[in-house]
């Protein structure tokens, strides 16, 4: 497996995203292409992670869990970063599109984050000897996920679309404060969780699999965001057509 293969795969996902954004006529099927390429890349990731990659020096085969655990957590962080970007954009210029995108990315981020935490717990059992520990990284990650679960709960309980969009944007910005705390928690405090690996500390084969896994998840992230955005837009149009919300037309569609 050449070292540049994850970079080539990243070029593919970047081309798909850019084409989707720039050429509106491709929006109906570009997500399908992304999901299809993602499935192929996922099949290869299973081979690379379970067979091709060498065992880790201390964790041995248990280290293979990191090829799915780390990309899941990274996708969670990417989704939450998109979410806060949409929240800031909404507060600067009110648009239902950015509000729908914010809702989509928050839900997808929670899904990836919950999966990442679950896989981390499975990894912790053979390496730390426990399923869970009240460690700074784990606590901060839990707080971050709970903040976004609260964000989604707030959105589902608030009926007025404009109030929901404005207040949830504020909640999103407040919730995002937890992300840098999660990232730096392993450096700021004496954490049981290991610090982030660097290019120097990773074996070249392991580095390829880690990046391959990350780019593979980007394909799914994109496909999920497109489909979840459609659902959010559909719900918005239903809510805006409903009689109580009908007079509110200040926000551009």
């Amino acid at each position, binding site marked *: 497996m050449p070292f540049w293969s994850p970079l080539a795969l990243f070029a593919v996902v970047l081309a798909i995203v850019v084409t989707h954004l720039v050429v509106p006529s491709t929006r109906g099927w570009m997500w399908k292409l992304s999901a299809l390429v993602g499935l192929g890349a996922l099949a290869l990731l299973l081979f690379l992670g379970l067979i091709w990659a060498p065992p880790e020096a201390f964790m*041995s085969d248990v280290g*293979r869990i990191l090829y*799915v655990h780390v990309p*899941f957590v990274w996708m969670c962080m990417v989704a939450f970063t998109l979410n806060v970007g949409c929240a800031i954009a909404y507060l600067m210029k009110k648009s239902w599109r950015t509000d729908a995108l914010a809702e989509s990315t928050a839900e997808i981020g929670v899904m990836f984050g919950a999966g990442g935490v679950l896989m981390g717990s*499975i*990894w912790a059992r053979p390496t730390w000897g426990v399923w869970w520990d009240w460690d700074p990284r784990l606590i901060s990650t839990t707080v971050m996920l709970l903040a976004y679960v609260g964000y989604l709960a707030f959105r589902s309980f608030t009926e007025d679309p404009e109030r929901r969009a404005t207040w949830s944007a504020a909640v999103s910005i407040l919730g995002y404060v937890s992300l840098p705390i999660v990232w730096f928690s392993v450096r700021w405090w004496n954490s049981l969780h290991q610090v982030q690996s660097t290019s120097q500390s990773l074996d070249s084969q392991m580095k390829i699999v880690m990046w391959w896994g990350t780019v593979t998840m980007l394909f799914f992230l994109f496909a999920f965001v497109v489909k979840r955005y459609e659902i959010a837009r559909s719900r918005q149009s239903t809510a805006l057509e409903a009689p109580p919300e009908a007079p509110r037309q200040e926000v551009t569609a």
Partner: protein
Amino acid sequence: MRSPLLSRALLLASLVAARALAEDVPAPKHPVGIEKAVPSGVIEGGWGYVYAAYTVALAGLLLYALSLWTRRPGAQPPPPGDTP
């Protein structure tokens, strides 16, 4: 029998060597003595955990895709009152 001068020279040399070593070796980032409490070695086996984690990853992607499909616009029939 070691002469006092030789003893002093040896003591001085050991002090200089200890200081030089102390400057070269960075201070440990964890509490001193924790090495005794942490078991060393390589984890053996653990494939069950590996398969469990990969199953969680695949199931997470599959179930979320399924949830998007069931919630797609137009998937749910309109309420009975809305139909003519």
